[in-house]
């Protein structure tokens, strides 16, 4: 390409729309916007209600949030980025490599995640840190002997990992 801003041949005739077409296009875009806004508000309401109802961390809630996010992402890509208007082959060129690699990344992180231990099964250093945090939060500290105990705890873990 000789120039930085190469021109698509007949770009004008392909993408120059009249007012009637523009009106229709704008209506679609605003509809997409309202759908996305409603989804976001719904997510925020559910998200701020979650702790009171003990939903936080519930699997169905996570699946719901991720599902709604994917819906929003699809709306952005198909209508705002106009991928829905490109040729079929171009859609595949963009989407297939991405989806393939992301699914692979998720797969590999789930597999490797098994070896890193279940939630709460931390390495020794993490354990000391987390126990300290929990102790500080629950208020079992302040006495002079507390520091001694702290040291004893870490040694306990040291022996734990050795055998």
């Amino acid at each position, binding site marked *: 390409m000789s120039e930085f801003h190469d021109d698509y041949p007949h*770009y004008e005739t392909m993408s120059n729309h009249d007012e009637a077409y523009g009106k229709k296009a704008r209506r679609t875009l605003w509809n997409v916007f309202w759908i996305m806004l409603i989804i976001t508000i719904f997510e925020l309401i559910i998200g*701020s209600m979650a702790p009171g109802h003990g939903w936080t961390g519930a699997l169905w809630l*996570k699946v719901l949030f991720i599902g709604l996010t994917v819906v929003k*992402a699809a709306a952005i890509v198909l209508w705002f980025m106009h991928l829905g208007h490109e040729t079929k*082959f171009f859609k595949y060129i*963009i989407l297939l490599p991405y989806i393939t690699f992301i699914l692979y990344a998720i797969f590999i992180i789930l597999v490797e995640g098994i070896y890193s231990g279940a939630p709460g099964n931390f390495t020794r250093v993490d354990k000391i840190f987390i126990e300290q945090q929990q102790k500080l939060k629950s208020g079992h500290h302040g006495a002079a002997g507390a520091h001694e105990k702290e040291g004893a705890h870490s040694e306990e873990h040291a022996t734990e990992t050795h055998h």
Partner: protein
Amino acid sequence: MAHTAEFDAKAAWDGGQSPFRVSYGKMMMWFFLVSDALTFGGLLVSYGFIRHKYSDVWPKAENVFTHFPFIEQHLPLAYVGLMTFILIMSSVTMVLAVEAGHRMDRRGVTVWMFWTIVGGALFVGSQAWEWYHFIVGTHEGAVRNVWDMATKTYVQETYHGATMAVNEYGVPQFANYFFFITGFHGFHVFSGVIINLTIFLNVLKGTYEKRGHYEMIEKVGLYWHFVDLVWVFVFTFFYLL
């Protein structure tokens, strides 16, 4: 779409044809966005791994981000909701600018590009504000044990807010990922605002009017929507899950 024009093979790419009926520049923007999306995908997947591993001690976003400008009360997630609204809104104004460009409506492009830039700048500012409150932290702070070399004992120290090393709300990893991913995204938004501003000035100068089409608006529009797309995921993974 009006794909009715006769295809002029001679005038297409150097190879003689455009296999995807898109211009070279637009296609390369798409390829760049795919690679950039993979970078963000990698970051978010690794975030998910750490998030799961530390799920017992991971701070809840609704306890961390409770501030709202000019309001003393705690409003969990309200400000990030507003930020999300601003970014989605600026995405809409961007696509309206693209649509105006399709109709060669210079005034429409100017107006919608202007509002897109305003929205982007507002978002970057909001993010700076959010970072500021996260770094400064709460008035109460949190307590941690620090090894004192002089007395060879642990002494308790009160600290506030979050840095790369400490985080009063929970594990430091939360702060690390928060700074890294929202920082990376925020820098993308910042670049987007600069790029939009450049194109906006070209629109004012009439560059695209002379060129006969507003395809450049589509290209920067792709980038801008991508920034919004990433935020949709960052918002879900950091603030909702």
